[in-house]
């Protein structure tokens, strides 16, 4: 038993939902109680999906438990198949159904449904969302490719068979899924990048694929493992079974995109890309070299994300922006080894945890100037008053922007430059504002647009609910009118004091006046003479 106040990953069946909802023509029957239908909102609200995830829940109740829940499962499966006519069916259970052991997958297997059925066994009490997504994608492909498995001893296809077949090389893009970070735009970016290098995309999966597309996976000359959290096991299996080579470099950042292209060219027996391609295609290298970026040098940055984005961010921060990485960690236990290795290269010990308070503590101790993290680190950083950019799932609706904002490839590098440097500049402005805190222009409330970098005003941020409270526009407000502010013992300006005040340039006069009055009040001075004004000036310049 483990006390959890907030979790980076959902249960494994939510990972299976991500696969189902990312694809077309696939349906998922989930044996689960009604509360588990909450997971629909992850897709319809955070991703703003225009349709419900293709999931039928059995929503069994306590009173069903005495009776025949297996019958309920079978009825739900039959109804889902009749209504949605899927090309393939996933059948599984959530945590509670796992305990009552109806084995819905086996039930479905005995039903003669006329569609391929994948029996998902996702242990809810030991595994989590990303594992569930990876396992589902793997099991689905395994089921659909069963008949194509080459006989043992079949020679591996030659990676340059495309030449012999008189066509362009083609690859699969594996791993992009809903609720992953910027997958929608990464696909477009990588598709374009590959096109420029004369490489076709065979299948993108799971995002946008149909079961029939998965059947074509072995036709690719290579698999690109874009998101190892989701596609790692599938890529390894395809490599073992079909001999399809895997490109494992994740092209996030300028250097990684170059290494990605180099690895891809080697695998496909293509000419190596031009050395200056990065400079021609991305603005990031020049932006980072330009004098304005000098102030980025040595900025202390703390990174916590899924393994893919954490590793990529650490490399970019260190190699491409000249930051100092002061903390690196991940919640992806499956890929902890890789993150540990990257951390070691940077002279750090990786933080592997799913306790956000441990992350916040480490963040505080590292005293970074910039935090790169998930939406949770955004909250922690806000509490600590540190600028932050979100670089990884889990997402908030604001992390799914309307604009094209990939992370991968050349444009992804541009986007990363902007989105990491922007909060730092906001932080800088915030600092300047701090210096002029007493200026009348900078009273509370004028600063709200800088909320990202603003110091915390309260521990909690219950935004929607409080907004609703604040929004009660009508009569209730009339009941509680605040009394006018009473200023006790306001000092009076003497003639020479006023004369001195008039000599002060108008653009700071207001500030000096307020400061002097505050000073007078604090020091019990009744009349503000010229001397008092200079006393105040000396006081505030300390």
């Amino acid at each position, binding site marked *: *038993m*483990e*006390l*959890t*106040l*907030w*979790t980076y990953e*959902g*249960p494994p069946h*939510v990972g299976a939902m991500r696969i189902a909802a990312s694809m077309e023509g696939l349906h998922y029957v989930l044996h689960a*109680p*009604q*509360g*588990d*239908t*909450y*997971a*629909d*909102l*992850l897709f*319809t*609200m955070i991703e703003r*999906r*225009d349709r*419900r995830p293709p999931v*039928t829940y059995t*929503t*069994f*109740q*306590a*009173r069903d*438990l005495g009776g025949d829940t297996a019958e309920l499962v079978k009825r*739900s499966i039959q109804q889902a198949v009749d*209504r949605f006519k899927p090309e393939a069916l996933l059948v599984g259970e*959530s*945590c*509670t159904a796992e305990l*009552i052991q109806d084995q819905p997958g086996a039930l479905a297997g005995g039903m003669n449904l006329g569609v391929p059925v994948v029996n998902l066994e996702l*242990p*809810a*009490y030991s595994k989590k969302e990303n594992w569930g997504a990876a396992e589902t994608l793997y099991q689905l492909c395994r089921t659909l490719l069963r008949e194509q498995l080459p006989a043992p001893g079949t020679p591996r296809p030659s990676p340059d068979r495309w030449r012999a077949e008189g066509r362009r090389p083609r690859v699969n893009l594996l791993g992009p899924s809903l609720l992953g970070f910027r997958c929608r735009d990464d696909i477009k970016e990588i598709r374009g990048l590959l096109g420029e290098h004369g490489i076709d995309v065979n299948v993108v999966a799971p995002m946008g694929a149909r079961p029939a597309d998965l059947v074509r996976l072995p036709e690719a000359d290579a698999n690109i493992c874009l998101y190892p959290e989701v596609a790692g096991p599938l890529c390894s299996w395809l490599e073992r079974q079909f001999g399809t080579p895997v490109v494992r470099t994740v092209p996030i950042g300028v250097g990684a995109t170059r290494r990605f292209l180099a690895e891809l060219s080697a695998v496909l027996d293509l000419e190596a890309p031009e050395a200056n391609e990065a400079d021609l295609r991305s603005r990031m290298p020049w932006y980072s070299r330009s004098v304005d970026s000098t102030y980025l040098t040595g900025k202390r940055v703390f990174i916590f994300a899924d393994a893919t984005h954490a590793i990529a961010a650490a490399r970019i921060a260190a190699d491409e922006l000249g930051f100092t990485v002061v903390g690196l960690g991940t919640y992806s236990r499956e890929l902890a080894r890789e993150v540990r290795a990257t951390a070691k290269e940077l002279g750090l010990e990786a933080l592997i945890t799913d306790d956000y308070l441990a992350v*916040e503590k480490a963040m505080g101790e590292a005293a970074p100037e910039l935090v790169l993290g998930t939406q*949770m680190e955004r*909250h922690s950083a806000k*509490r600590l008053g540190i600028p932050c950019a979100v670089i990884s799932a889990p997402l908030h609706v604001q992390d799914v922007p309307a604009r094209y904002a990939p992370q991968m490839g050349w444009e992804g590098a541009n986007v990363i430059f902007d989105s990491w440097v922007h909060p730092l500049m906001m932080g800088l402005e915030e600092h300047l504002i701090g210096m002029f805190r007493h200026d009348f222009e900078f009273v509370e409330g004028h600063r709200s647009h800088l909320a990202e970098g603003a110091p915390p005003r309260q*521990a*909690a*941020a*219950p*935004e*929607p*609910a409080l907004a*609703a*409270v604040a929004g*009660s*526009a*009508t*009569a*209730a407000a009339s*009941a509680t009118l605040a009394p006018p502010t009473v200023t006790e013992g306001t000092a009076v300006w003497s003639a020479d004091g006023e004369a001195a005040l008039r000599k002060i340039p108008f653009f700071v006069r207001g500030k000096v006046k307020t400061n002097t009055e505050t000073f007078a009040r604090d020091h019990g001075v009744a009349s503000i003479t010229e001397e008092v004004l200079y006393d105040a000036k000396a006081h505030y310049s300390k």
Partner: protein
Amino acid sequence: MGSSALRPVKESVDAARFPHSLPPDGLTRKGPTPVPMASTPTLPPLLRESGQREVFCGLTSIVWLHRRMPDAFFLVVGSRTCAHLVQSAAGVMIFAEPRFGTAILGERDLAGLADANEELDRVVNDLLERRPEIRTLFLVGSCPSEVIKLDLAKAAERINTRMRGRVRVVNYSGSGIETTFTQGEDGALSALVPLLPSSDEKQLLLVGTLADGVEDRFLTLFERLGVGPVRSLPPRQSTALPAVGPGTKLLLAQPFLSDTVRALERRGATRLASPYPLGVEGSRAWMAAAAAAFGVDPNLVAEVLDPLVERGRRALAPLRRQLEGKRLFLMPDSQLEIPLARFLSRECGMELVEVGTPYLDRPLMAEELALLPQGTQLSEGQDLERQLERVRAARPDLVVCGLGIANPLEAEGIATKWSIELVFSPIHGIDQAADLAELFARPLHRRQLLKWN
């Protein structure tokens, strides 16, 4: 399994126990449309559905309960799913020191209950050590804890003995196999009932969470009416529990508190029959019901409330113009559907296509049902796909539904209002009636504003 199992409908069993006993000065006096209160309109047969339900489980109510009682902690004993549900429902409410969490069961806990109990004690110990400010700990059961029959009542007893009064531990179930969405509050409050001190004092007890500001407003008005003392369950401090006894008159602020009401009645309290305090009409009747029970002169009631009613109606008028004649479909979710339907049809002129409710507690809804227009189609339970077919066929102007369905319906060209906002917003009372109507007018208004050519 637990006393709050999704209850089968008790068809009018209790109707006789709760005669419509609105005071003579109730709604008829200056109500929007005078209606004979005691006549039940003819409603078509209830549509009972059983199929896929798209409703949160009772754990969800932790999201507002923990804000109501800042000295309490809600510890769900469940799975990663439960933790994920609560945080997804809470949205951006992320706290440095949150007052809710989940003790996630692991494989070892499932292997042996003895270990699970030990583990739970360890987790609770650690938690209480780290959070000495906690005064009440709610152990909240979930589907997994119910299915493995982890006895949280025994656990609460054990910990209570050990803590010797430093913290009070109570338990209830918010599991999805037994409770829907708002029923979790019913569970939490009924778990508190045995702890309430006894008192014969005549008092008014408001039952159900209200936004603090709204509650303050009601307290002011009750004071003007000379009704008092007035106490609340849940209280704002978990330790400041109200007393209960034969002198206690219950006034329900929320319609989803069946078990709590019955438990309080067993302690001698009597429920004041009234519609719920939503809208001008319902809120006036609600306060008037309390006034009548406290023997307040109807003239004073009119003097205090009627100016508010006038003002409330003036504020409603422009919203009524936007909502009038618009066709409304309420999907079953928060259990507020019937009072909302009553308000939106009678005070805002909306036409009711279908009013869904997760379950129908007829005694607690009697006064509301009596106010529904003739012919209102009620449905209980859910068969999601079939209900969506009815929505598509009816093409209503507005659908009230859960977060999972809202955007998909919008994408089909149907305007929606998410129901979860209703349990987080201050919507109760005469002064809030216009705000409440505005929540429904806004999606329609927005559609008028947006132009793409």
